[in-house]
């Protein structure tokens, strides 16, 4: 069983305290929805879970069965898609995907990019540089980049932003596929995404 455990997380931006003593967990086979008003710290919480920020207090532990994942294994085993994270504007859609695939998988990356791009209806746009794609297409590409290496843990921050109906379908499919591998933590205030959740954690101001 793959699990994510966060104990007693506290974080402040300078003198402004975002949250204190947050404890949550997520296990393989479930989607944990993190909800909260704007400014409550949902995105910051996800960054802490991803190891991008160090909390003032508390810790986050990733388990793959009995084993605890260290930083190196987490880099291979974690996928994240967030609003504040961009792709490379000067690379094409295909090059972006291949780049992130090769970083984590090396020679094992193979041709994983093609089937993903086809599913997202981006194969015909694969040679367009990322900055020329529409916002919805870029969002889909970001989702694909987060899952190309088949991560064990998936963190999604407002993944449905700018997505149309087909894009939401793709998101739903990716979440369902990932649930079989490991837990999904989804931070969102979008009602379209509430239906994916198995459990809800509310971050209050």
């Amino acid at each position: 069983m793959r699990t994510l455990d966060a104990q007693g997380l506290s974080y402040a931006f300078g003198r402004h305290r975002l949250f204190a003593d947050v404890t949550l967990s997520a296990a393989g086979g479930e989607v944990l929805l993190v909800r909260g008003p704007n400014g409550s710290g949902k995105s910051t919480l996800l960054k802490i879970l991803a190891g991008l920020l160090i909390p003032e207090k508390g810790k986050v532990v990733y388990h793959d069965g009995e084993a605890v994942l260290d930083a190196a294994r987490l880099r291979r085993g974690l996928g994240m898609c967030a609003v504040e994270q961009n792709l490379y504007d000067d690379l094409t859609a295909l090059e972006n995907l291949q780049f992130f695939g090769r970083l984590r998988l090396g020679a094992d990356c193979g041709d994983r990019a093609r089937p993903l791009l086809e599913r997202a209806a981006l194969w015909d746009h694969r040679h367009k540089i990322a900055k020329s794609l529409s916002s919805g297409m870029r969002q889909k590409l970001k989702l694909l980049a987060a899952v190309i290496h088949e991560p064990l843990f998936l963190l999604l921050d407002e993944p449905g932003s700018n997505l149309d109906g087909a894009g939401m379908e793709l998101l739903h499919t990716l979440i369902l596929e990932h649930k079989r591998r490991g837990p999904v933590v989804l931070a969102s205030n979008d009602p379209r995404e509430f239906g994916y959740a198995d459990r809800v954690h509310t971050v209050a101001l």
Partner: protein
Amino acid sequence: MPTVFTPLLSEVWTLFRKDWRAELRSKVAVNSILLFALVTLALVSYSIGPYRIPAGEKPAVLSAWLTIILFFTSMTGLSRVFVKEEESRTAETLRLAARPEAVFLGKLLFNLCLMAGVTAVVVPLFCLLMEFHIMHGCSFYGIIALAMFGLTIASTLIAAIISKAGMKGALFPILSFPLLMPILLETSLLLAKAAAYPDLGWLPEALGILTSYAGLMFIASILLFERVWNA
């Protein structure tokens, strides 16, 4: 449990190729660094020219000018590899996907290629325009190569630091200058010797100093980079 780890060199190469490919498309760093070097070269050539410097002073003066041009040229373009990641908000994406030492080595490799290309253009052009006759050509170019190697290593870590601060453009030369001063001073003196001294007895000690600087800067950068990258 994920057991497949990409070898470090493979990661470094992937990162380097990504930067190189992006640069070939936009050509921002290459154009700005090359044009800056040529503009500075032209300014020096117009304002001093090869004939106003007494023959006996030429090796020292021209070596100093060349070192200054190469320093300011590096300040124009070497910070872009990291600044661009922060400004285009790809740094976090990269932090999740690549190990810090691979990021540093990939960016360093890119900067080395950039400086090598610019140096290969600027130095012969400088020697041509300023009538700089070199007695020991191999030693001269070897010293430049080793000096630029050390300079690029130190500048790459400084670039990572300033990419996370404000006032990036002004901050880069401010932070770099004190740390690069040993190599700049040494390079200027050694180039003058390579140009004018009849024997090469000074060369082994000189190469030792340049190599030790580059080596120490490299080790320090590798050890410290992760703290900067995750700051």
